[in-house]
């Protein structure tokens, strides 16, 4: 091994949301002198407001630190941040693949949570050296012994190795840095081999274009290198290589073992795919780094402009927004009920919420979202298999041989008193138990196979309610399975409202149909014409309701002095109706389109 590599360490921090990852990262940076006191913001790694508000990290970044260890050698440490939510599981795995080790951060007051566990297993599969760190030990409710027991029993690690720390109080920081240097192996790799750089993140920079964050596995790269993205074959000339220290700082070159960024005047962030390999176009590697999987949306929903937002406004906003979110996909969709809008693909529900919120907040877009759905696979009688991203596109039942839906494996870690409540909830969601174990006297780990569609709507909320917020949840995608699924259409005055169609398990169809119809009756105002609402499967009506027409308005006089006031009143009423969507001769308020979300 070259001397250069001996002094490099690449690591991530594995932690549950709120377990103190960002604070600890800040302390490590401070200790290494990477942050001037005056530059300190609360948490440097989380750069977007929305992340800070929600206490989660969405975008990964990599920071280069210089650490002078007790052995008197100066080490280069690369701290690779990982996103902390279930929707971003693949990104997490690629960040881990760029490392040789990880700090496993556990909140001393909370214990191990489902998400930490899922990431831990990923890290273990990648042969990472794991350093357990028990955080927040300064809090009165810290229970170090309990956490140590969990580390032994659940993770199978030696709890004697665990470092006691507090990011907030600055306890154990040097000990952690020493452990990184002493326990995590230096990177392998040969700088004389052809270039192989693993992309683990990207972002769009107005000056540099789309920028790739990479770990150099082999070879080297510098300004002027002609690079090729191996999954697409696209080639670019490198304009800058560098590292975050924590500011973006240009370097002369990056070699095997290094972590940093590559800019190459790439216009479209979608050209830089997480997990892809960058090689030297003039001296290409024969094989890419294994494990590349193009980002694939898991959840689809229709986003439609409403209020004063036009289709064009929305298209511009999506274009701008997606520059920095390569995971979002969108295509124009036309709905007879909602007009022109977009079918958008998201990594998961949180991703969808973030996109929606940022479009509204940062781009001033007023939008209406249809109920989200998973991707269904339909096996036709002809033997052909098609993917359905919008329930209204489901073929005629007579043409369908089978409908398949994606399943997930859900891991739930919960205090044992809530096990009963969780079992009941999961059963309602068509879940099948796959594992049950205690990870300490009071905490259980439950594993279930659940159709993904069932966790789309209100699973998180219901889990929170059922366990008073104590349970944690993580999932991993399994495979597609055939299900007894049917398409339910909602008819208004006999006509299908395409934006309200959805796919549901036959056993739940009656209850959900009834609930939707009742919910819609509540939110649709009485108007000139009767509104008949029906939930149907095929031609069979399973639930119906009516909103009786209005009988009369205020029948006020209208003489010379009343005209102006009356006109203003009617104009106001008309303005209020702008938020309604015209459907045939009746008008539907936006709430009607979200009734499905509340149907369980």
């Amino acid at each position: 091994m070259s001397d250069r590599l001996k002094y490099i360490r690449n690591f991530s921090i594995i932690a549950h949301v709120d377990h103190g990852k960002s604070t600890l990262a800040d302390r490590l940076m401070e200790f290494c002198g990477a942050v001037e006191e005056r530059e300190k913001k609360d948490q440097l790694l989380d750069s977007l407001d929305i992340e800070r508000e929600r206490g989660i990290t969405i975008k990964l970044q990599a920071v280069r630190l210089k650490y002078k260890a007790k052995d008197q050698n100066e080490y280069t440490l690369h701290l690779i941040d990982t996103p902390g939510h279930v929707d971003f599981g693949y990104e997490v795995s690629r960040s881990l693949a760029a490392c040789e080790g990880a700090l496993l951060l556990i909140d001393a007051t909370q214990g191990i949570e489902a998400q930490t566990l899922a990431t831990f297993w990923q890290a273990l599969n990648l042969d990472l050296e794991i350093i357990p760190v028990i955080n927040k030990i300064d809090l009165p409710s810290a229970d170090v012994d309990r956490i140590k027991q969990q580390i032994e029993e659940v993770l199978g690690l030696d709890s004697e190795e665990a470092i006691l720390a507090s990011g907030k109080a600055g306890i154990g920081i040097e000990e952690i840095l020493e452990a990184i240097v002493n326990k995590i192996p230096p990177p392998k790799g040969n700088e004389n081999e052809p270039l192989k750089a693993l992309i683990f993140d990207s972002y769009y920079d107005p000056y540099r274009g789309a920028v790739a964050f990479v770990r150099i596995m082999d070879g080297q790269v510098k300004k002027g290198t002609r690079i090729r993205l191996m999954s697409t074959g696209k080639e670019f000339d490198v304009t800058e290589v560098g590292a975050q220290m924590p500011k973006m700082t240009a370097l002369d070159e990056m070699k095997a073992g290094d972590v940093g960024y590559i800019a190459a005047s790439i216009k479209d962030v979608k050209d830089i795919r997480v997990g892809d390999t960058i090689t030297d176009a003039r001296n290409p590697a024969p094989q890419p780094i294994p494990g590349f999987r193009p980002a694939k949306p898991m959840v689809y929903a229709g986003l439609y402009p409403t209020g004063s937002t036009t289709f064009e406004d929305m298209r511009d906003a999506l274009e701008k927004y997606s520059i920095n979110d390569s995971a979002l996909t969108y295509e124009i969709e036309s709905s007879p009920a909602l007009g022109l809008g977009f079918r958008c693909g998201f990594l998961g529900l949180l991703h969808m919420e973030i996109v929606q919120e940022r479009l509204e907040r940062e781009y001033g877009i007023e939008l209406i979202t249809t109920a989200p759905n998973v991707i269904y696979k339909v096996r036709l009688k002809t033997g052909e298999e098609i993917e359905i991203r919008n329930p209204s596109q489901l073929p005629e039942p007579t043409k369908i041989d089978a409908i398949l839906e994606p399943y997930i494996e859900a891991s739930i870690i919960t205090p044992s008193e809530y096990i009963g409540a969780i079992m009941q909830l999961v059963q309602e969601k068509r879940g099948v138990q796959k594992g049950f174990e205690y990870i300490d006297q009071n905490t259980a780990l439950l594993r279930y196979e659940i159709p993904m569609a069932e966790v789309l709507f209100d699973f998180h909320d219901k889990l929170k309610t059922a366990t008073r917020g104590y349970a944690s949840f993580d999932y991993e995608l399994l495979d597609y399975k055939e299900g007894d699924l049917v398409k339910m259409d909602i008819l208004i005055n006999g006509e299908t409202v395409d934006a309200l169609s959805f796919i549901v398990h036959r056993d739940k169809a009656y209850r959900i149909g009834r609930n939707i119809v009742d919910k819609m009756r509540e939110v649709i105002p009485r108007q000139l014409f009767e509104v008949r609402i029906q939930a149907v499967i095929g031609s069979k009506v399973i639930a119906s309701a009516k909103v009786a027409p209005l009988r009369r308005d205020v029948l006020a006089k209208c003489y010379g002095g009343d005209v102006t006031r009356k006109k203003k009143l009617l104009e106001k009423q008309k303005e209020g109706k702008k938020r309604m969507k015209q459907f045939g001769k009746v008008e539907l308020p936006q709430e009607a389109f979200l009734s499905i979300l509340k149907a369980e």
Partner: protein
Amino acid sequence: MKIKGLYVHIPFCSIKCPYCDFTSIVLNNNQVYEKYIDALKKELSLYKDFHFNIETIYFGGGTPSVLPPKLIGDLIEFVYKNFKIKENHEITIEANPNTYRYSQFKEIKSFGVNRLSIGNQTFNKKHLVSLGRNHTPEDTINMVNDAVKAGFENISLDLIYGMENQTLKELEEDLNIYTSLPIKHISAYMLTAYEDTPLGSMVLDNKYKLPDEETTTQMFKLIDNYLESNGFYRYELSNWAKKGFECKHNLFYWTDKYFLGIGVSAWSYVDGERFGNTKNLTEYFDMIGKGKKPTKFREILSEEDKRFEKIMLGLRLKEGVNINLIKNKEILKDLQNEGLGKIKENKFSLTQDGLMLINQIVTRLF
């Protein structure tokens, strides 16, 4: 287009009714009355250069019949003398049941008043009290008889329906009396709780309960059907008349004709502009005293405004509106199918059911 209607607002009452949203003050003082008539003449003079061809004069209120007839005569004479007025013009005065009697009717008739609009509201004693009226059913009947004796042929009676606890039967009893009297015109108003009226506050505080939608729907139908079968036809949402006795003045409001309103809070519509006077009597006197028009509100109508008003007002009328005014024509068929509207040649009009939903319909058509 010339100004055809002249509206004169008399803002004085002997009591203030809790439901009333017209501008009026409780005042009984002949000196102020004289000063006010004087101010009205001065105000009229400020419009001398406008183009008039007066066909109607309407004394509204308030209660114009609190004035001594001579003052009414004064103003009419002033108009005759200074403005162009058409033959066979209509001059209406609103009167309350316990005011004018035979001799006063004789007197105003001699000044040219030829139409009476009597604020009766109901013949039910209980409901007269709940409406805060200070007259009896007999007062109205005596008044109608006196007016007829004095030579009035064109008499209108106001009717209010939809009072708290009013039954359909009570309403039918009212209609029975109305149709048995020698009158030619009935204005029927659903009791409306306007903001800033005592009734409005009472309804908000749940101290007065207006009847439900179904009851008032039935009431409107009862009135319309009852009156139609007794020779009164509905020519506007709130107005029924024997053929030939429609109120010409009020028709100007609904058919886009120009009218000038004088007096406190009076509104005008002239040359595509709506303007309204101050609602404050002191300010009114003040401005007139300084030789200024007492205009306080002004609205110049855009073409879209005009179109909207034509639909909003035209649909109140039996004959309806020209279809070409309507933007959203697709809905017309639906309205016809639902029995809410009728399309006949190039006119769209509302049926009885449709009329009761006029606000909803107007907002959908435009």
